């Protein structure tokens, strides 16, 4: 990104001191892994993992016009949100190209928005360009706050002893406000990017290290691991979740990406709505899962063909630790998208056979129902 010197999260020095391999990501210096991507991935699937996601953009909206502003700039219908509820939404430009995918949090009368680190400036710019006459104020709280994700089957047991509100009262895609460690004001949401039960915490930046270390200590008995962006990517990938720059971009239709449900054309006119109406009628391609026969990875940009004819392009490819297979997501012609269709993927000049499989690749096993009382 533009910054010559990457931004640092409040946990940056902790990462460096604990073996984090730092890379530049979206203008931030972030840990890609501490030990092994596969080990960190499996900790989240089987126990619990901790992620520094402070690089994500955090914007606050105050004022009577906040809802209308958000509803004009985002594609989902934020007026449907009740207090303490969260909504997945998209932001489109006038041509229906996507600027970002975001989460909208509704407080009492205020709103917050979490966006991708790589798009924070573009998101703010889009709001500013559509601010004429709007009676609301946008504040970028990214640098004043930290954001930590606690994800995995033992996430609740790890977090609860540190938090003064009952976590089981927070439903999926809802949040609450309480105190961590007795005195740290925290927004705790039941959200995540892993496909597991988990929480995302927003706290003051200066408390980040204290909370992070307390979480690691609390999760010690469960086998908690700090996890980097590498595992974050393989986890979201297995869960079939899109990533901006891969499954989403300014040239990929949300209807092709399988995210049409987050575009509420019936709510009235909003930025991009005319173009999105046309896209809905002819999305062109569709997002599918592919399972390769071999172990080589079909990374982004690999071309997919069927019977010698080009049918699409890989958006993300990864090795799935849970399924022990090389998998890919791709945007392909609807005629080649049926489950079981055989295709070939050009992986750096060599053809690799693959089959269309359902998304998501991985679904969290539902907890077994309690044994009936006899």
């Amino acid at each position: 990104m533009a910054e010559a010197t990457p931004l640092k999260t409040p946990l940056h020095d902790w990462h460096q001191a604990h073996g984090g391999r730092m890379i530049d990501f979206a203008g931030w210096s972030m840990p890609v892994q501490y030990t092994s991507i596969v080990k960190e991935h499996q900790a989240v699937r089987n126990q619990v993992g901790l992620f520094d996601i402070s690089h994500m953009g955090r914007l606050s909206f105050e004022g009577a016009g906040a809802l209308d502003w958000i509803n004009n700039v985002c594609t989902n219908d934020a007026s449907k949100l009740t207090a303490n509820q969260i909504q997945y939404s998209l932001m489109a430009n006038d041509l229906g190209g996507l600027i970002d995918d975001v989460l909208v949090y509704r407080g009492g009368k205020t709103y917050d928005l979490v966006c991708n680190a790589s798009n924070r400036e573009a998101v703010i710019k889009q709001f500013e360009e559509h601010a004429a006459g709007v009676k609301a104020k946008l504040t970028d709280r990214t640098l004043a706050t930290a954001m930590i994700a606690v994800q995995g089957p033992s996430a609740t047991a790890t977090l609860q002893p540190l938090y003064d509100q009952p976590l089981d009262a927070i439903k999926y895609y809802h949040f609450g406000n309480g105190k961590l460690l007795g005195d740290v004001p925290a927004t705790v949401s039941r959200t995540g990017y892993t496909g597991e039960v988990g929480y995302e915490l927003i706290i003051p930046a200066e408390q980040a290290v204290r909370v992070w270390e307390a979480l690691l200590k609390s999760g010690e008995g469960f086998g908690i691991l700090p996890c980097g962006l590498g595992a974050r990517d393989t986890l979201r990938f297995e869960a079939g979740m899109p990533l901006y720059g891969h499954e989403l971009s300014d040239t990929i239709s949300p209807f092709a990406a399988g995210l049409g449900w987050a575009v509420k054309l019936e709510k009235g006119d909003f930025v991009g709505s005319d173009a999105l109406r046309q896209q809905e009628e002819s999305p062109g391609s569709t997002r599918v899962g592919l399972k390769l026969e071999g172990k080589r990875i079909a990374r982004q940009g690999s071309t997919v063909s069927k019977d010698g004819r080009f049918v699409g392009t890989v958006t993300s490819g990864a090795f799935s630790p849970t399924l022990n297979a090389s998998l890919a997501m791709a945007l392909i012609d609807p005629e080649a998208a049926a489950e079981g269709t055989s295709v070939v993927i050009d992986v750096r000049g060599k053809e690799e056979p693959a089959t269309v499989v359902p998304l998501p690749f991985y679904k969290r096993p539902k907890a077994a129902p309690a044994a009936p009382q006899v």
Partner: protein
Amino acid sequence: MDPSTLRFAPTHEWVALDGTTATVGLSKFAVDQLTDLLTIELPNVGDRVTAAKSLGEVESVKSVNDVYAPLSGEVIEVNDALADNVQLLSEEPYGKGWLVKIKVDDPAELDKLMDHAAYETKIAEEH
């Protein structure tokens, strides 16, 4: 193989030269950096390789990386065991995880490579 007796390329391959036969592998440092190895693609016996040019690729969960020939020559043996079990490379980078043997064109090319101490200094400076 005792790493202190080996020569190293700046691209992290090691060489053990015996007459005109060079055994080639990847340094422990390189393997540790890669982590989570998935596959390795190696040349075939009889292929020509050229110093500082790619002779194959090693793929990890994170990325695909070229492996470079430290010396020019002809491939006379390939470690086929790696095709079935690439973890040999992480477990024994200086032993069972060797990659190929090359009949080298010019044994004097070895002088261009670093000794172990120089290699250790280089990676300490860069990382």
